[in-house]
């Protein structure tokens, strides 16, 4: 996971075959929450294999981000997080880089996801004093039928929304 970034506005789009089912079979998938998690059309995912830590981890403030999505997200967005409460661990890097947690989502909720993530980033920019550019890293896997695309953004926080604006119409 990154500590800092010097990118201004970089968006990489990769073709993929990853779907929600791939995560339902992970060791960390909480079987006791299977019913609720499988209803989600937007699922927050952990990072695996951070140094020698035996469990998967989530970036700093994932819990805050998760609650923000549930409170401020569009009603069509059904959000959950792919971990049990007991196995939830946050990795603090003490960095001035906002790492948006990795997500997998259905293509039809992509526009509302971009909106709510943009709102979250805006709230971060507003609460900040420093004049230096605030950087963001975000990775979305967008599932459309049997295939998917992975969007990886790295750059200035205030460039996130304008970069993703054209992406909203990609699956229409």
């Amino acid at each position: 996971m990154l500590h800092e970034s010097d990118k201004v506005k970089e968006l990489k789009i990769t073709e993929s075959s990853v779907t929600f089912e791939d995560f339902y079979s992970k060791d960390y998938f909480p079987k006791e929450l299977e019913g609720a998690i499988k209803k989600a059309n937007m699922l927050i995912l952990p990072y695996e294999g951070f140094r020698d830590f035996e469990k998967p981890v989530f970036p700093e403030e994932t819990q805050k981000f998760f609650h923000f999505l549930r409170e401020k997200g569009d009603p069509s967005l059904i959000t959950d997080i792919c971990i049990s409460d007991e196995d939830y661990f946050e990795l603090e890097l003490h960095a001035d880089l906002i790492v948006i947690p990795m997500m997998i989502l259905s293509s039809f909720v992509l526009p509302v996801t971009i909106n709510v993530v943009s709102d979250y980033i805006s709230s971060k920019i507003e609460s900040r004093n420093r004049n230096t550019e605030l950087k963001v890293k975000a990775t979305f896997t967008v599932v459309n039928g049997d295939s998917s695309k992975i969007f990886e953004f790295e750059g200035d926080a205030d460039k996130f929304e304008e970069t993703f604006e054209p992406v909203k119409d990609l699956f229409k």
Partner: protein
Amino acid sequence: MKSVKEINDYLLSFKGSQLEKGIKERLESLKKLEVDSGNQDNAMKIWCVEQIEKIIRHYLNSYKFLTEKDYFAAWCELERTDIELSFLKPHFNYKAQSSTLVFIEDKIAQIQKLFPYQYFMSRETVVKKSHCSICGATFSLRNSCGHKVGEIYNGEQCFSIIDDFEFKGSAIVKDPFDKYAVIFPEGMEYNYFMLEHLMENFKNPFEKWTLVTHKELLEQFKNVGRNDPCKCDSGKKYKICCLKSGESYGNHYEIIFLTKSPEEVKSVPRITQSNWKTS
């Protein structure tokens, strides 16, 4: 000063060098009365006034350390001022109400630019368990106590208190979230010449000055042709190395005092110096 309003007005327009004594204690007792009577709105307003007092106090401490040439202590106080200001920001629109806080916000950024610190340690910690500072409940993803970190309850800001964590490593970075962990390499000494020159003229904490930054070609890159070997010894041509990356340009800082006549300012000749002292 007796009422919250009097203290608030005093702080919002404060331009002195030392705060009146007893403000902190007075606010604490006033806040307790509001909390005891269940008045959350008033308790929160007093929390904001307490924050303003903290911000000014830390800024004044920083100024004092600068005058004493205790630069690292001054740096830490500036960081603290910045953090306290960020706590206040979501709850109080100081930009519309206090020229004092706007001044301090500007000065934190400007003074920090004059420090030679460039690299910091950044820790990697896995947080395993934490609890709410308001009610003591363990933070949970799906069964939250309802208190939100950063919000104000009973006149206190909610924090996440870490109970269990694992330290996994550290990194050297240029821009961590807060910059307390300055690197002091053994056998090397920082050169504080810009601060030394600033303090020759900066004679009270609220004196008006501004910092203008110019990007200028560094001395070693002057007279280097685009196709010449780069001066950084990369083996590449200058045009595809430091010229392209911008590394051949450095910041030239100009400090302008806004309320002093030119005769009153002890001017400094144009100089270029390293961030490190040489023996």
